[in-house]
Structure formats: C-alpha cells, structure tokens
C-alpha cells in the first residue's frame, strides 16, 4: 500500500550488474596469476640435467680413484673402469638420468629422476670399494686406493639429481623409503663391499683407538664452549634488550671478538693467561676462545628475539596483570625462543669448526688429525679428521633444528621452506 518504487534509477536486474562486476574482477585475478606463474612448464628438467652432467663429468673426465704405492706418495689416477660392473652401472645411471631429464617425459619422470639420483649416491661407495679391491690385487700391503675427485663429483651429481626429483614430487612415500634404502646400501657397503679396503678406512683402522678419543675431545671442547656461551650469552642478550647502553657495548665488543681470526685470538690469549699464572696452552684457552666465539650469535639473536616481541602482546600482558617475571617467562621467552635457538644452532656449528683450530694450542680434538695429516702430507689422515668434523657439524645442526621444531609453539613456527 504505502509502497514506494524500490528503484528509480536501477534498470534491468541488479544481479546481472553485480555478476558482471564480479566477472570483471575475476578476469583481473586470472590475468595477475598468469603474470606470476608466467613461466611455461619446462620440457627439460634443468636441475636434474645439470646434476647428470656433473655426475657424467665425474665418471668420464676426472680420475674416479687414486692408486698409491704407500700412504704418503702422491697417487696415480684410476678411471671409472677400475670399479668394474659397479662403475659401468654408475655411468648407466648418470646417462639415464640425463636422458630422462632432457629427452623423455613419461608420467613417471619425477619418480624416475628421484630413484636415479638416489641410486647414484647409494652405489658410489660400492663402486669405490670394488675399485679398491680390484686395484689392490697383487699390490704390496702398503699400497692404498683413495677416493678420487671423480667419486666426489658422482656423489654431488647424484645428490643434485635426487634433490631435483624430490622437489618435483611433493609429498610422496617414495622419499623416506629411498632415504632408508640409501643409508642401508651405504652401511652394507662397509660390511659386504670393498669399502674397508679404501685408504680412508685403512687409516681409520690404524687410528681407531685414538680417533674416538679425539672425537670425544672435540665434542667436549665444543660442548663446553657452547654451554658457557649460552649461559653467558642469553642473559647478556636479555640485558641488552632492556638497556641501550648494555646493548651497544655488548654487541660491539662481541662483534669485534668475532672478527678476530681464531688462530690469532688463541695466540693472543696466551699472554693474559700467562700473566695470571694459568696455562696458555691446552683446554683452558681453547674453552675461553670457543666461549667467546659462541657469544655473538647467541647474544645477538637473544637480543633481536626479545626486542622483536610484539608491542601489542606486551601491552596486553601488562594490562591483564602479569608481573615482569610472568611477562618474561610466559610471553617474551616463548616468543623469542625460535631466534635464541637459531643463535645456539649457529654458535654450535661455528664452535665445532673453531674447535679444530684449538688443536694448534694443544687442546686436542679432530683438528689434531687434520694438522698431523698436513704435516706428514698424509691426505687420508687429514680427511679422517675433516670428514667427521663435517658430520659433527651437520649432526649438531640437525639436532638443534629438531629441538626447535618440538620446543617452539606451532603458533609461531616458521613453516619449513620447501627444500
């Protein structure tokens, strides 16, 4: 009755007008998306192809292994063919990976590349073992066969191909299965394959009792440095976040220490220690130096972590009646934890590396093997020190990342960047 015309202006159906507008927006979005993902899908898996080229170069261009009459003399290059069937298998895998990544595109290409890469990595120690066994036939007992640059390249190429395959697959049950298989093949090559005949293994057999003692020493030195660094660094970082004076003083001092070459710092530490009657050589200066180096990443990350806590969360916490201690414990500490742990991780990796240098001042550790190896020009001894050092650093890295993935609240966890 009292009806007004609903519209004096709208002609036609408003729905039609609206849907037109939405279509317009939809079109714009689609256009944007083509800009973002504008690359056409590549026919060639260039990463896998690159890995295959690296592996092929390792197979064909450089010596796969080296034969030496004894431990010290430099080696004679030995080609892939010295590994016999296993060597040809490696070559076949590399060629297949190249073909699959460049020429063919079957539906199972991603899986194929993944398997070929893992296969190259898994077979490498077997091939080296076979090479060692066959080359040592008839040679005298001091003769040794060591890993050639070709074997390293095959490993590297295999790892790249593996990575390329894994990246293209997304979530797949094949990945963990392959990882376990590769580990299994590596371990079994040490038991059933010729790996114990390799010069590195022979060196280990000679040094085995001393070796584990040095590993323990290395771990102890790094552990002490990291522990003291954390115990001092975290409170220092927390203080720095409260007080500008402490912050600028601490960060610059710790920064300068970090700059000084580790060997120079160890050399310089001798004098103040001697002045107060303490030994300038051995575990004490090593621990002091490692602690000092561990400080920078820990202090800086603690500071940045605490300083970066959202002002709104702090205001809300205070406004709800948290005391300073409650605010620190319940809000600031958990929010800064990811960065603090990242600092501890970086410090651990750093300290494991620098612990090697402390061997110069008589503190022991795996550095001893490296430096003795250099002194005697015995490459195997050097590698026996260096490779476990790398393993320790990688293990510490993984272990602390693992701790972080459990200890950090899922609400603030950084999503794992696609690897």
């Amino acid at each position, binding site marked *: *009755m*009292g*009806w*007004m*015309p*609903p*519209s*004096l*202006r*709208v002609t036609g*159906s*408003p*729905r039609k007008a*609206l849907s037109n507008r939405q279509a317009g927006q939809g079109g714009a979005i689609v256009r944007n998306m083509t800009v973002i993902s504008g690359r056409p899908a590549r026919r060639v898996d260039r990463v896998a192809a690159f890995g295959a080229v690296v592996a092929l170069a390792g197979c064909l261009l450089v010596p796969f292994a080296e034969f030496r009459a004894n431990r010290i003399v430099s080696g004679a290059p030995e080609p892939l063919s010295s590994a016999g069937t296993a060597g040809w298998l490696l070559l076949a895998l590399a060629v297949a990976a190249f073909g699959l990544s460049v020429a063919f595109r079957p539906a199972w290409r991603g899986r194929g590349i993944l398997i070929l890469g893992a296969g190259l990595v898994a077979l490498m120690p077997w091939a080296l073992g076979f090479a060692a066994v066959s080359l040592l036939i008839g040679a005298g007992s001091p003769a040794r066969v060591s890993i050639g640059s070709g074997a390293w390249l095959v490993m590297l190429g295999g790892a790249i191909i593996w990575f390329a395959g894994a990246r293209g697959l997304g979530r797949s049950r094949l990945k963990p299965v392959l990882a376990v298989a590769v580990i299994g093949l590596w371990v079994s090559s040490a038991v059933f394959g010729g790996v114990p005949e390799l010069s590195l293994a022979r060196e280990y057999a000679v040094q085995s009792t001393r070796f584990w003692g040095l590993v323990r020493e290395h771990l102890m030195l790094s552990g002490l440095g990291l522990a003291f660094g954390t115990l001092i660094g975290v409170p220092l970082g927390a203080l720095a976040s409260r007080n500008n004076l402490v912050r600028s003083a601490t960060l610059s001092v710790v920064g300068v220490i970090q700059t000084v070459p580790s060997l120079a710092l160890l050399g310089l530490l001798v004098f103040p220690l001697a002045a107060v009657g303490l030994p300038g050589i051995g575990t004490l200066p090593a621990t002091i130096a490692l602690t000092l180096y561990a400080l920078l990443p820990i202090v800086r990350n603690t500071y940045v972590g605490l300083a970066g806590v*959202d*002002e*709104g*969360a*702090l*205001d*809300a*916490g*205070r*406004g*709800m*009646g*948290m*005391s300073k201690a*409650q605010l620190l414990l*319940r*809000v600031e500490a*958990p*929010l800064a934890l990811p960065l603090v742990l990242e600092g501890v991780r970086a410090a651990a990796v750093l300290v494991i590396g620098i612990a090697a240098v402390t061997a110069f001042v008589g503190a022991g550790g795996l550095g001893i093997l490296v430096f003795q190896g250099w002194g005697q020009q015995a490459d195997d001894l050097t590698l026996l020190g260096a490779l476990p050092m790398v393993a320790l650093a990688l293990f510490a890295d993984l272990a602390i990342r693992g701790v972080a993935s459990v200890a*950090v*609240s*899922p*609400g*603030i966890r950084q999503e794992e960047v696609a690897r």
Partner: protein
Amino acid sequence: MIRLDNVVKRYGDTTAVDGVSFEVPTGEVCVLIGPSGCGKTTTLRMINRLIEPSGGTIEVDGRDIMSARPEELRRHIGYVIQSVGLFPHLTVADNIATVPRLLGWKDERIKPRIGELLELVGLDPDEYAGKYPRQLSGGEAQRIGVARALAADPPVLLMDEPFGAVDPLNRGHLQGEFARIQRELKKTVIFVTHDVDEAIRLADRIALMRDGRLQQYDTPEALLDHPANKFVHDFMGADRALKRLGRVLVGDAMRTDIEVARILDAGDIDRDACGDARFVYLVDGNGLLRGWVDCHDLDEGRSIDDAVTEIDWREASVAPDISLKDALSTMIGLGFRSIPVTESGTLVGSITLSSIEATMTSSDSHITQLSGETLSSEEPS
C-alpha cells in the same frame, strides 16, 4: 562504577591530562573521544595503572586504584586494545585462559568458561579453541581479544580503540556484537575512540577531550543538541541530524506489515498479493528474499519474467542490527528509496526514506538508544 577526580598526568613540563573528573555509573558505557593527542588513551591507561597518575584520585567500584598492587588491580579489569595483542604462541583457548590462570583458577573451571566466552562472542568453540592467532582474521582476532578480556568476569572493561584496525564492514558488525554483549553483561566500560559515529552508536555518555582537558561529559544527544562550546559543536560535526540516526537501529524503525508475493511451486507467483501497491517484495517458500514484483506490469498483462526483478539479499538488503544511518547510506548507494530488511536472507521488514525522515524530525524522546528497550517509530501513512 568508575570515578575520576581531578586526575592529572604530567611528563616533564607538558601536561598530558589536566584535571579530568567524571564518573561512570555501573553498567554504563563511557566513550572517551577527542582528536589525537588529547589525552584520551593516557586517561584510559591511568585507570589500570599502565600509566601512573601524577595527581588526583581514581576509584574503581569505590576503591582507590593506588591501594592495590598494579598487577592485582589489572587482573580485575578487562583490557582490550587496538592491536589486539593476542599471544601468538598460545592457542585461542590458552589466550582466553590467561587471566583466570593468573588468578589461580582450577582447570575444570577454566575449560567450560572458554566455551562459554567463545559462544558469547559468536565463534564456534569446537572450531576456534585450538586455533592459533595467526589462523584468525582481523575481526575474529578482535572477538577473541574481547573474550579474553571478559574471561575472569571483571566488572570493569577498558577498551582502547578496539575496532580501529578492522575494516569498516567488520567494524559495523563488531560494534553490533559489542552492543549485544553489553546489553547482556552490563559491564562498566570505558571505550576510547576517535570515531564520532562509533561514539554516538555505543555510548551511554561521551567524554569529549581536547589538549588534556575534558570539554563536555554527557549523553550523546546532549552533545549533539547542546554542545558546551564551539569545539564540541565542531567536533560532533555539522550533520547532527544524520548522526542521530546512528543511534537508531533498523530493527527498531522498520515497517513489518509489508506485502509480499510468494513464489508458487508451479514457477508462478501469487498475483493477488499485489493489491493496491505498485511494488511488492518476492520471497520463496522459505521466506528468503528473492526480488521484487512490479504490479503495474502484471496488471498490464506482461509476463512474470518482465515484472519480476531478481535481487541478491547480500547486496541489496540491510540487517536489523545496523544503524539507520548505515541503512540510509546503503540505500543512497544503491539508488533505492526503500530497502528490504533481512536476517540471513529472510525478509523481516523494510525501511523507506519517509520512515527515516520521520525519525529525523521526531522529538528526542522517540529515539531509542542501543542499550534501551525497543521502540518502533511509526511511519505516517
């Protein structure tokens, strides 16, 4: 009840808050408003002693705030801020449980309380309790912020521009939700904003500040109709009649005795519904608004397709819990002289330009406040 008596805050030589006195009766919403730097936020933060007053006294429910430890005081005052400040490392449930835990509540008391509060702010407890703040939208986060502030059932609530960072559409919804919750809980609220419309919509009383001094403290109507000085007059704005519409809800002003045509099963509509009207709304069997019918076209024997205009209720209708001002704005935007009122799509009434006009010219006594009882404004036919 909150009472401020000659409260002063000085920073060195500058005086941020200068002799402010007012009293907020229990269960009322006092909105502190003024240009930026006027001291409104400082005043608010002195009440829970996030800022210590330099002079004067503040009483909350008859107790001087200086008589207790600040932490103790704050645990009994709800606090909501613009940046929400949810703890990102805690779930929604743990965020809400913060103050109850500080107060030492037992878990068996906290758990049901969380569900209760989530329902109060209109979120499904099963869905939201386990979420982390980063999984929430801005509007959802602020609802949780309000729930967290209410967790230990504090008699007093301090809100510092709580809806300032939310987009305008969501802000309207949140204001409506807040008004509903406040009707239910009757807290004593001090609410800081710089948005005059928000103040008019939500306040029982407005305290308008400038340069640290209180300019006027009264009901929104009084500030609109009897400004104490030119500053108040200018700050409240020239469109005072329009602003007053901000205090009337669509649901209170709409006509409910409207004619509708139904869609019949046969794909036809009941043509008899037209009667004398030129236009009637069209609803389906479930009462959902589908469009309108031009009765004139039907009378002239045109086809139903020609006579019916389809509309989408999401775009071309208003909800009963928004203000008349917002409804008017929607109508102008669409070019409508009359707009249907729907609740989740169901047609419940309509608002016409003439009914709005009537509200604007009617005397103050006819205007309902948000927190008051419903009063329908009859449209002269």
